[in-house]
């Protein structure tokens, strides 16, 4: 039941967002058919081309036929590049963006959990004060500023990583080169996330540590380590998991920016290029993929949430 409602919501979100995209694109000045046909084209020729491209008719009609194509698995063709489908455009960009995002989340959680645990064990201690101050500073760093700082420090001064991440080898061909290239963009995104996660997790850990059941666990003579990992961590992780879900939107935005900064052809750059070129179907397809991706991730977060907290399981059951 809850699943169906959620699925309904997903479909609704995708419809609203893609229709809105069509509407927006319609407002952008310029006609792709005219441009594609070239300067020598006759008005009839342009009209013909428009028909062929699925650009004729009213906005709802065009949207309707595009949805119909999507259902058949056809995302449409690019209007800028002849003979290239929207899927081709996306296929090249998507893995790059995904790799950046996955690396960023891995780094963020990998650092946040131990840091938060250390901080919560000794609030006001050295680790805690430094990690809190750093997190606060990181929150004030927009990704493009942080990216420039990191680029300057690690690439320009230290020279450990390439300044730009253009034309990177595939992960399977050259894992080291690949990871080296994606390291700085991912780190840029990861540090922003890290700040959010550490602050939330630390606060919740401290709160859980003061619960009766933790006091009783200590009074049962369990080791500090066991108490922390078995009793405290799981009930404290709910807000952090929620934040991870909520942050996906911001993270995608951040990914767009680091792609521009580190100059590689991910979803962000393709998106901007397409939107400026009024490349209808590429833009709409990308928006669809992002919307579906976002809803799926939040769906996963909800599932994870109910795995972590059995009390929620009953409510949604």
């Amino acid at each position, binding site marked *: 039941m809850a699943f169906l409602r959620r699925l309904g*919501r997903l479909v609704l979100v995708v419809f609203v967002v893609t229709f809105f995209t069509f509407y*927006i694109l319609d*407002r952008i000045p310029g006609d792709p058919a005219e441009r594609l046909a070239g300067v020598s084209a006759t008005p009839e020729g342009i009209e013909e081309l428009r028909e062929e491209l699925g650009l004729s008719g009213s906005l709802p009609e065009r949207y309707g036929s595009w949805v119909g194509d999507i259902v058949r698995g056809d995302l449409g063709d690019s209007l800028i590049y002849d003979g290239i489908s929207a899927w081709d455009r996306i296929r090249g960009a998507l893995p790059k963006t995904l790799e950046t995002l996955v690396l960023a989340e891995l780094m963020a959680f990998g650092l946040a959990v131990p840091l938060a645990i250390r901080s919560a*064990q*000794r*609030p006001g201690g050295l680790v805690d004060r430094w990690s809190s101050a750093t997190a606060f*500073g990181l*929150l*004030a*760093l*927009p990704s*493009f*500023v942080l990216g*420039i*700082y990191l*680029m*300057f420090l690690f690439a*320009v001064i230290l020279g450990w990583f390439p*300044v730009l991440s253009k034309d990177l080898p595939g992960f399977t061909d050259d894992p080291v080169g690949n990871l080296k290239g994606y390291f700085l963009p991912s780190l840029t995104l990861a540090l922003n996330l890290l700040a959010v996660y550490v602050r939330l997790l630390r*606060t919740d850990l*401290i709160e859980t*540590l*003061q619960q*009766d*059941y933790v*006091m*009783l666990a*200590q*009074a*049962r*003579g*369990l*080791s500090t380590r066991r108490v922390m990992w*078995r*009793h405290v961590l*799981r*009930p404290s992780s709910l807000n952090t998991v929620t934040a991870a*879900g*909520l942050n*996906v*939107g*911001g993270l*995608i*935005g*951040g990914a*767009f*920016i680091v792609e521009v*900064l580190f100059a590689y052809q991910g979803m*962000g750059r393709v*998106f*901007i290029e397409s*939107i*400026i070129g009024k490349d209808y179907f590429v833009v709409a397809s990308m*928006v669809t993929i*992002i*919307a579906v991706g*976002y809803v799926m991730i939040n769906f996963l977060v909800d599932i994870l949430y109910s795995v*972590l907290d059995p*009390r929620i399981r*009953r409510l949604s059951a």
Partner: protein
Amino acid sequence: MRKRLGILFWIAVLWIVLVVFLAIFRDSLPIADPVARLARSGECERFERPSWSRWFGCDNAGRDIFARSVEGARPALVLGVVVTGIAGTIGTLVGVISGYIRGLFDTVMTTIVDISLAFPALVLLIAVSVAFEPSLRVFVIVFSILGIPGYARIVRGATFALAEREFVDASESMGATRARIVRRELLPNVALPVLSFAFIGFALVIIAEGGLAFLNLSLDGITWGKEISEGRHFIVDHPHVSLIPSTVMFLTILAFNLVGDGLRSLVAPREVATARRLHIEGTPEPRSEGDDAVLRIVDLSTKLHTPGGLVEPVDQVSLSLAPGEALGIVGESGSGKTMILRSIVGAFPLADVTRAGTVEVDGVDMLRSADTVSRRTLGTNIGMVSQNPLTALNPVRRVGDQVIEPMIVHGDLSRADARERALELLQQVGIPAAERCLREYPHQLSGGMRQRVTIAIALANEPKLLLADEPTSALDVTVQDQILRLLDGLRRERGMGMVLVTHDLAVVKGFTDNVAIVYAGQVVEYGPTAEIFANPQHRYTVALMNSMPDLNLPSHSELTTIEGAPPSLIDPPSGCRFAERCPAVQDKCRTDDPVRAGTDVHSYSCWFPMSEHPVEVS
């Protein structure tokens, strides 16, 4: 309620004031023309480094970076102020209505907010910025729309919590209209959180504008984002061109965040938890020959080092418990009765704690033994039951896992054996469907059942000492009776010693052999339960007994009250701590600490005990 905001807060305020001042009065200040190519006139070289005469240096076209940074502050501030104003006002109204009136409006609002908060705002921004020619007006509208959900969510959350509070009910009972409740009871309480969030929201506007500028989708003219975006191409050879505007932007955002955070700390003070540190002082009191007490406490003092000062909730407490005996500890809230138990097991909330004196459980020094030894004693010889069964069990672990854990860790049982024994235990504590209960989570059980599970866990390794901290205070009276009888039965059956901490004299009367009356951290009277109820000596004991409504007296019997409130434990008064509230107080009581009087069996710390001065001294 003046609280310290800290030096950083004021530095941040100063920075914001400085940025605003420069942005407003740029034209009347001696600042270079931001668009003039000074390299042409020879005033400045291209990529000139920062120096005393030209603070921020020059960019690729030989333009003054300081002037450009000041100029860039203008669109950032204008956008920030207008958007924060619009989004803050609308968002607050939507949030208050949604949180207070609730209903359909709330459901719709929450759904919209949830979706919009999680969807990538930048994608939308890009689309809109391309579709409409980027202008200040377009930016204001789009940023405001994107900002509203954030405010609405925060205000709704705060309002929702406030509306649950009884003062809203009270206002409604008095006949206040809804509009009045919103105005008088709700808005003043959400004002500060909104203001605090407004500063953070302001920073977000600056970030969003910067992000767009970075993607070449910004306003005409000079903005910080554009400066950074253009300067980054020279990062390798001329890093200052991008690093300087980046840093200006970073510091401004940081300043807004600091102010927002400082304001928030006024509403929800930052938690002052200190690190958990345990110190031990003094030397142990040797045990006398033939003393087989399962619990021996001699001159135990516990001090908590808190930000408010040194608190001493346990002051020179001495107690002893023979095997199989039940000892009651009675006191009001804040008397330190629970702290005595915590001092035995060494489990405290996050705090810096010093314990002095002797605590021995079954011959093991709980204060000074090695960690492994005291942990082993905790695990095998002590069982503990706490006050609130709702919080005593870990909500996310199955009952079974929680029951078998101590057996596996300390009892060296295999998982299967431990499970077998857990079943037995649950049956012993009176849980009907024990098999099913093992698989359940705590929230699936009633309060009484949860308390039975807590007892089962406490009994897992056959302890010699059971510490029960208000085990029934959170339970209904019929359940309380069941639990008390269960504890009593188990104690007799197993010959366990039991310490029962409670505020309820009636509970003590029925279920203990000895009782200690605690007031303001001290044991004021200690002896056999029957003896103390028949023949109370300390004035506080007497007053406590008389102030309890008695079921055996007719209705409307006047109750004896104890006027005033217990003293603060931060700096307790000298002399008898009960002196201020005592009906029989004398001058001596206020100056001299009472000396323990009475016999070895029944002792009390009072200068004018009942037996010597049966009538009230005046």
